[in-house]
């Protein structure tokens, strides 16, 4: 029927993998990776900050695909994916902002700076909070799915526009690590630690997503 042992099993596997990955990542981040020269131990927040935002992007990409999927097929499952991914993505975006703030205070002396990357992330955060607010204010499942799908597509396509506009408006932030070809600034061990944490976060995201979708399915299954 709605819940097969298969999906519950998959969720459990994801959970364990995520836990292992996070543990490995934590060990690497706090123990193995060397202390960074200019910023000190605070720099280790990067191993939380960068994977968080990457995971958020993944989440919002899923929102885009799921929104399109819903409009094409009109099957409620797509909407569950969209809503769940948006919730978790927003959470990770918030985590990105908070960790960025914690990183910024000792490093640049302020809790917040309106530099390009942080600002764009903040705009993305409020966009998806607004998306979640729209979802929260519509009771009828079908109508909620329809309107959220349209908003989800618009919000996702707006992200590159936000990025470019904010970037041209202001640039202070470090050049993006990991997604630039061979940053000279980052030695091998740093990249390994970052990579492991990224994988761990992605597994965590997948686990949370699976759990959230299941909760959504169960709460809707109680209705005729």
């Amino acid at each position, binding site marked *: 029927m709605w819940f097969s042992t298969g999906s519950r099993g998959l969720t459990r596997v994801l959970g364990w993998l995520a836990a292992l990955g996070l543990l490995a990542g934590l060990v690497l981040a706090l123990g193995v990776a060397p202390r960074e020269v200019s910023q000190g131990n605070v720099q280790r927040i990067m191993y939380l900050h960068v994977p968080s935002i990457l995971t958020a992007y993944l989440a919002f990409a899923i929102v885009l695909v799921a929104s399109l999927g819903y409009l094409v097929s009109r099957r409620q499952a797509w909407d569950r994916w969209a809503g769940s991914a948006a919730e978790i993505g927003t959470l990770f975006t918030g985590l990105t902002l908070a960790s960025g703030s914690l990183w910024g205070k000792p490093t640049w002396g302020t809790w917040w700076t309106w530099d390009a990357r942080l600002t764009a992330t903040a705009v993305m955060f409020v966009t998806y909070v607004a998306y979640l607010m729209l979802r929260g*204010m519509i009771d009828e499942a079908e109508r909620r799915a329809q309107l959220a799908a349209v908003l989800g597509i618009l919000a996702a396509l707006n992200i590159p*526009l*936000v990025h470019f506009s904010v970037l041209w408006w202001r640039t202070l932030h470090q050049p993006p690590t990991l997604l630039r070809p061979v940053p000279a600034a980052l030695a091998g061990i740093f990249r390994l630690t970052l990579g492991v944490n990224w994988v761990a976060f992605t597994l965590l995201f997948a686990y949370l997503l699976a759990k959230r979708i299941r909760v959504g399915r169960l709460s809707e299954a109680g209705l005729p």
Partner: protein
Amino acid sequence: MRFVRRAWILAWKDLTIEWRAKETLNSLFFFALLLIFLFQFALGPDRERLSAALPGLLWLGFILSGLLGLGRTFAGERDNDCWDGLRLAPGEKSAIYVGKLAGNLLLMLAVEAIFLLLFGVFFDLDLVAALPGLALVVGLGTLGLAAVGTLFAAMTAHVRARELLFPVLLLPVEVPVLLGTVKATEAVLLGEPLGSVAHWLKLLAVANVIYLTIGVLTFDVVLDG
């Protein structure tokens, strides 16, 4: 052609009713005047400080009045209980989007023209030299606001707390438009050539294409479900 006629009759209906009732336009004109006072009081009598902020204030004014005006896009349908009529009229629903958009554009441009006039008077600005460039930037920015605003107005028309949800949805999406228009307006008011802000103008143009495309393609889902 039928599409155009249908969009046209909708714009005609809205403009005719607005012309007769004059509720929205008058209120927005007056709101523009009040905002001028607000800006003056908030940023003090210091002329330098105000001068530096003018492009931003201009667009703050446009956006705030835009929020009020765009939020009322379907107020006529609500007050007269005609929303179902829009759905029942056979034909592509995107014509309704285009018609409502046209009406909103005219409304917003009228209010913005008054705003510019008031800005010129109260802040002693000479806008005449900058007019062509200004017209282009204002045109692109207004289209960007109205394209999304019209869609969101339909989206929130029957949602709880729509007066609060509408601005909450619109403002984050409009960040690129706000940034682009303010920077471009700054350049225009300083007498710089438009070429220096070509990248902003291109961004605004691309944004408009995206917003209009989504609006046209998804309006029937938003209106009808």
